[in-house]
Every structure is written in structure tokens, then in C-alpha cells.
């Protein structure tokens, strides 16, 4: 069995191939050690690539009947997340699947006349909540939505307790005299 491509992650971001992944801790450590330089390099290249892609944008040539359609198209491909590249939106990704999805969005918008919400539902039906950067509020995502609130409450409690601590008691006459003598010695 070929295990050449088992590093996964960054290296496959532009190819569209899923890497095979044996999943044990020992394997993970060994692989990390063996492939750290390569992983760092490919991560760097992917990040650099993504930056360039963001600056320039992959070039697709699409026709629109009206300028409004083009505005909607651009807003939609900025909104969806590329399923392959995890942290890039459709408009910023060079991955083959991002290209396919841009084409799909264009087709749904210009030829099938779907509304923005229908297009969102279409992609979500196929790729799940993952393609939406804005996850819906349901049992599986409660932690996601409520954790920030919990942290804010903890923060407020901590600040409140600190503020409620009584001020230090004033120094006694003896202490003032001692402090004075220490300061004079200096």
C-alpha cells in the first residue's frame, strides 16, 4: 500500500485528492517528526498561495445579464467556504472544487434564477453547514455559540470580585514611623 501521501492537510489543498490517513498517536508523532520541514514548507506555500490568490483572485470568465447579478455572484462566492481548503472562501481558492462550486453558483444564479437563500440551501444540502461560515444555532452548535457568552460571564464575575475586595486598611502610627525611617535611610 502506498503511504506516500499520508501527510494530508496542506499538501492536498490544491489538488483535490484526499490523502490516506492511518490514525494513531505514534504514527502522528513519527509523521510529524519526519515531515515537519516539508509540512512547514507546504503550509507556507499554501498560505503564500492563498495570499496571492486573495490579492489577485482566481480568474474565471463568466457572463452576467445584469450588473446586479454580478454583484450577487461576487457576494455569494465571498460568503461560501471552500470545502477543500478549510480557511478560504470560494472566491479566494484555487482548489478545483472551488472552481466547480463557483461555476455551480453562477449556473444556479444566472440560468436557474435561484434566490441567494435558495443557493445557500442548495450548497448546504450537499456540503453541509461547513460551507456556510455562519453556522446555524442548533444542538450541535450550542457550544460554539454559547462559549463566548460563558467566557464573558466568567470575566465579569472575576472583575466584580476584584472590585469588591475591601480596600487595604490604613497604616497605624507605628507603621508610619517605621516607613518614614526606612525612607530616610535610603
Amino acid at each position, binding site marked *: *500500500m*502506498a*503511504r*506516500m*501521501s499520508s501527510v*494530508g*492537510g496542506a499538501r*492536498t489543498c490544491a*489538488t*483535490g*485528492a*484526499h*490523502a*490516506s*490517513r*492511518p*490514525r494513531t*498517536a505514534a504514527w*502522528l508523532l513519527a509523521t510529524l517528526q519526519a515531515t515537519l520541514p516539508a509540512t512547514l514548507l507546504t503550509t507556507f506555500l499554501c498560505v503564500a498561495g492563498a495570499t496571492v490568490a486573495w490579492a489577485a483572485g482566481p480568474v474565471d470568465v463568466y457572463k452576467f445579464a445584469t450588473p446586479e447579478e454580478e454583484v450577487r455572484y461576487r457576494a455569494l462566492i465571498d460568503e461560501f467556504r471552500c*470545502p*477543500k481548503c*478549510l480557511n478560504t472562501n470560494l472566491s479566494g481558492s484555487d482548489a*478545483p*472544487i472551488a472552481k*466547480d*462550486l463557483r461555476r*455551480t453558483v453562477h449556473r444556479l444564479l444566472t440560468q436557474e434564477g435561484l434566490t441567494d437563500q435558495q443557493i445557500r440551501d442548495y450548497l*448546504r*444540502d*450537499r*456540503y*453541509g453547514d*461547513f460551507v456556510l461560515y455562519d453556522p446555524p444555532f442548533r444542538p450541535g452548535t450550542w457550544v460554539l455559540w454559547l462559549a463566548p457568552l460563558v467566557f464573558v460571564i466568567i470575566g465579569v464575575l472575576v472583575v466584580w470580585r476584584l472590585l469588591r475586595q475591601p480596600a487595604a486598611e490604613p497604616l497605624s502610627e507605628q507603621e508610619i514611623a517605621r516607613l518614614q525611617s526606612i525612607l530616610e535611610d535610603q
Partner: protein
Amino acid sequence: MSRTSLFVPLGVFLLIVGVGYAGFKLNDPHELPSALLDKPFPEFSAPLLADSGTVVDRTALLGKPVLVNVWATWCPTCKAEHEQLLRIRESTGLRMVGVNYKDDPAKARSWLRQLGDPYDFVVQDADGSLGVELGVYGAPESFLLDARGTIVYKRVGDINPRIWRDELAPALARLNGVAAGGKDE
């Protein structure tokens, strides 16, 4: 400061360790949960790899459980997976249908000639549009369908011996169990 509050840093430390451990135990972030699980396999029509003039549709998948495998010659993991598919086919006779994803048909045909062909038939998905319908975002991906064409299991990545033993074979056994149970009644 009460004595118990001395243990707060330890608690925070254990929390961080716990979160880190859970993070390592999590699945590969590249494996998206499938939106299509327990839903019918989408309608499609696509030409056969063996004969571009013949077009098949969803009905060709119905009647018996079938493993729909999305593959391509440009995908190195698919090659590793191929041996396992051949073994499964040989040992279980599970019906397999290939989706040749964004590939060159000539290359795909010679690939099957050289490495063996586990598929009942292979359809071409030259532009990846069937892939979009299936929520595919790379290759290989596989879908196990019951006799009515409902997706009961999905695997993103290769079907290796571990996946076969731990996930696919049990899913198939459940399907066959249901089918056998249905006949008994």
C-alpha cells in the same frame, strides 16, 4: 485567598490538557460530516466509461446494495484504495459502481485494464457536476447505498483494511440484515 483557590491553576491546567487531548482525538478536520447521509442518492445521468454513447441514470443503482466509489487516475490514494476494492469485490461480491471524477476517459480505461476492474460499471463525471450533487470535494470518496438508493454510509478518503473492518463491513452487514429480516416476514 482561601486554601481551595490555590487549586485553581491546577484546574486550569487540567482543563487545557483535557481540551488538547480532545483536540487530538478529534477526527481529521478535512473530513466533513456528510449532508447526504440517509438521503436518496441524487438524480443524475452520465455516460459510461466503457461506452460514452450509453447514458445511465439513478435507476441503474437500485435493486441491491451498491458501493459508489468516486475515483480518478490523478489521485494517488485511489491507487492504494484500488487493491482493497478488488479484495472486497472478490471476497463479498458487493456490487460496485465507479464515478470517474474529472478524469481523462482514455487514461481511466487503461488504468482499469492494468490494475483490474472491481466495478460493475463506471460512469464519467468529466466536469465534476455529479460530484457537486454528491457533495464530493476530492477523491476518493465512497457511498454505500441500500437497495432503494438511500445513502447509508459515506467515506471521505480511501477505503483501507481498517475502514473496511471497522465501518464499511458493519454497515453492509446491517444492510444485509435488514434485507434478510424483510424477507423473513
